[in-house]
């Protein structure tokens, strides 16, 4: 029969385990010790946004593999140390602290979601470790400090692009908006679109909101239908966008729907099906792009991941790692400050998501690509330069 002593022993053992795991590898010099360069990555590999985190992670892994296969950087191989934040707030801070102080990484790659990038940024800034976000588009992320970068465009740009697209190509002056109240990305993109669209003298006839994870949008769409817009802007993620378009058509809404880079994923068509015909969205890249860089990336990704086609998150995850490696090469060192400067000096880097140059705010000035869906396939429409 177990008694107090037994439990105490159990507790003591577990506490010792904690001590042991803690005391072990702490300390040590910067990540360029031994013969590998340690790079840290944090992503949402499980939990609600696991789809995005896993995607960008796969892109990053491919990049690291290719770099190492070609000999690594500065004569050393890159070792990717990655951690999962379970899509939960609070965990990114812990794992980034761990990556920096226990694993001694020279840089941090992450994250997809602006909220979680924001959580990690003060820590990277404090320890002077450069952070490159693959696809966080909220402007606040890079405002956290001069060690924080991103390889994608930011929402004010994207919002402007889509506002101009709506008036110019869709010829819509009365638009409805359906955004995700629980997503900072969606709220931000929606806000910039609204500012630009209204500033040009157009009208937002109605704005409705949903929560990420919802599957039923008929209530919101019914209200939108009653307001009779000429087009509907949906600045959310593909997980909901696909369903929204489908349900809109079921309710008899015939006007085009359009959105931002959150729509970008092969699953969009699987979910939305034929309802997506004639809809549009802006994104960073298209796997249909015939350029050699994109095609060889797509093929390499498919070979490594069971024929899965890479989406924008994967492509950006790939580019973030490539930009970092390039910066390390140019800096010739992994020292924090010099590496930071090298990243900041990235100019005309040939990424699969476009020619990447980092501006003085450490954001990437890149073109946006407009995609439409025709005959059940993604089709490139036009490129809009900043």
């Amino acid at each position: 029969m177990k008694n107090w002593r037994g439990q105490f022993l159990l507790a003591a053992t577990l506490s010792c385990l904690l001590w042991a795991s803690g005391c072990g590898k702490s300390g040590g010099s910067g990540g360029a010790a031994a013969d590998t360069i340690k790079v840290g990555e944090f992503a949402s590999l499980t939990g609600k946004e696991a789809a995005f985190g896993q995607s960008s992670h796969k892109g990053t892994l491919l990049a690291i593999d290719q770099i190492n296969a070609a000999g690594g950087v500065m004569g050393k191989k890159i070792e990717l140390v990655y951690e999962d934040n379970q899509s939960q707030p609070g965990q990114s801070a812990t794992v980034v602290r761990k990556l920096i102080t226990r694993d001694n990484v020279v840089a941090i790659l992450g994250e997809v979601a602006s909220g979680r990038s924001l959580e990690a940024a003060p820590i990277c800034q404090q320890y002077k470790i450069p952070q490159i976000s693959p696809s966080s588009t909220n402007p606040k992320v890079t405002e956290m400090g001069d060690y924080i970068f991103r390889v994608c465009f930011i929402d004010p740009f994207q919002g402007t692009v889509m506002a101009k697209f709506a008036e110019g190509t869709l010829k819509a002056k009365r638009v409805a908006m359906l955004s995700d109240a629980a997503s900072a990305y969606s709220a931000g993109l929606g806000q910039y679109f609204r500012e630009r669209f209204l500033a040009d003298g157009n009208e937002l006839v109605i704005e409705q909101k949903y929560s990420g994870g919802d599957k039923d949008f008929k209530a919101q769409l019914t209200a939108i239908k009653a307001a009779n817009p000429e087009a509907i802007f949906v600045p959310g993620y593909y997980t909901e966008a696909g369903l929204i378009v489908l349900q809109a058509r079921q309710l008899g809404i015939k006007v085009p729907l359009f959105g931002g880079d959150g729509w970008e994923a092969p699953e969009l068509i699987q979910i939305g099906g034929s309802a997506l015909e004639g809809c549009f969205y802006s994104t960073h890249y298209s796997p249909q792009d015939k350029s050699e860089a994109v095609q060889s990336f797509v093929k390499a990704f498919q070979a490594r991941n069971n024929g899965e086609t890479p989406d924008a998150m994967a492509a950006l995850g790939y580019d973030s790692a490539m930009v970092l490696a390039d910066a390390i090469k140019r800096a010739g060192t992994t020292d924090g400050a010099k590496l930071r400067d090298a990243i900041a000096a990235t100019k005309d880097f040939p990424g699969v998501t476009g020619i990447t140059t980092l501006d003085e705010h450490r954001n990437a000035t890149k073109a946006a690509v407009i995609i439409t869906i025709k005959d059940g396939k993604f089709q490139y429409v036009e490129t809009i330069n900043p």
Partner: protein
Amino acid sequence: MNEFLQQLLNGLSLGAIYALIALGYTMVYGVLRFINFAHSDVFMIGAFAGFYLSKYVPRETFGGGFAVLIGAMLICAVLGMVIERLAYRPLRSHSKLNVLITAIGVSLLLENTGQKIFGASPKPSPVLFPSTSFTVGGLILSSNQIAVFVVAIVLLIGLRFIVMKTKIGTAMRALSFNPVAASLVGINNDIVISFTFGLGSALAGAGGILYSMNYQAIDPLMGVLPGLKAFVAAVLGGIGNIPGAALGGLVIGVIESFSNGSRWSTWTDAIAFTLLILILLFRPGGLLGKLEVEKV
């Protein structure tokens, strides 16, 4: 007016699905006095069972559709009974709170294993029944929504029949009044409890299929939110009360629909819970429930 009716229709169809899930919660509670947290994940397994089963049947036919529905319900029934046997039965003599934790553990296990095995990205739901849209006087109704109503009503009637008119149903009711007395009159509690779980889980499986038909994407975490709302619905109607669960489901569905279609859509969850709390303040046993009188 048109918009109002359309929202009402949407709400009722959503509510019917919540009702199906709520029935499972309420049945298990009625017999065992415990909230089965893993119920919402059985719902998710039902949807995935449909996804994989649909590959073996001809698409968009009534026969194929029913086959998948029955198949998913059977799989879920078995899953529910297995969970009960392995995780809940050993704890029956202990405090309810321990079973609660075990249920939470099972729920997390199903969700995370699902993410590992099925992958975290959403998958498109298979098209099971031939799907069309009807326009009736300006209101739009899809055949899938009609399917939801029909199946839900059939299952509800079937459930009522089982509970009221069959031997095992009577045994279930006896157990819910007093487990000790029930075993004294010769009822095999283990079998009845197993059956209850199987039945409740089958309903969850049906709910999963209907849900995936109406909202064309499925993912391993799809059960969390509907499960929570269905749980609220079950309590709203009076937990342990079968018609109450159905009523609660419809009420929650309609509230959600009207709230989402209004300016206040970001407050939907808060509105639903506030109404729940207000109703419980005036009727502490739920809408149709009876508070147990404590005898001293």
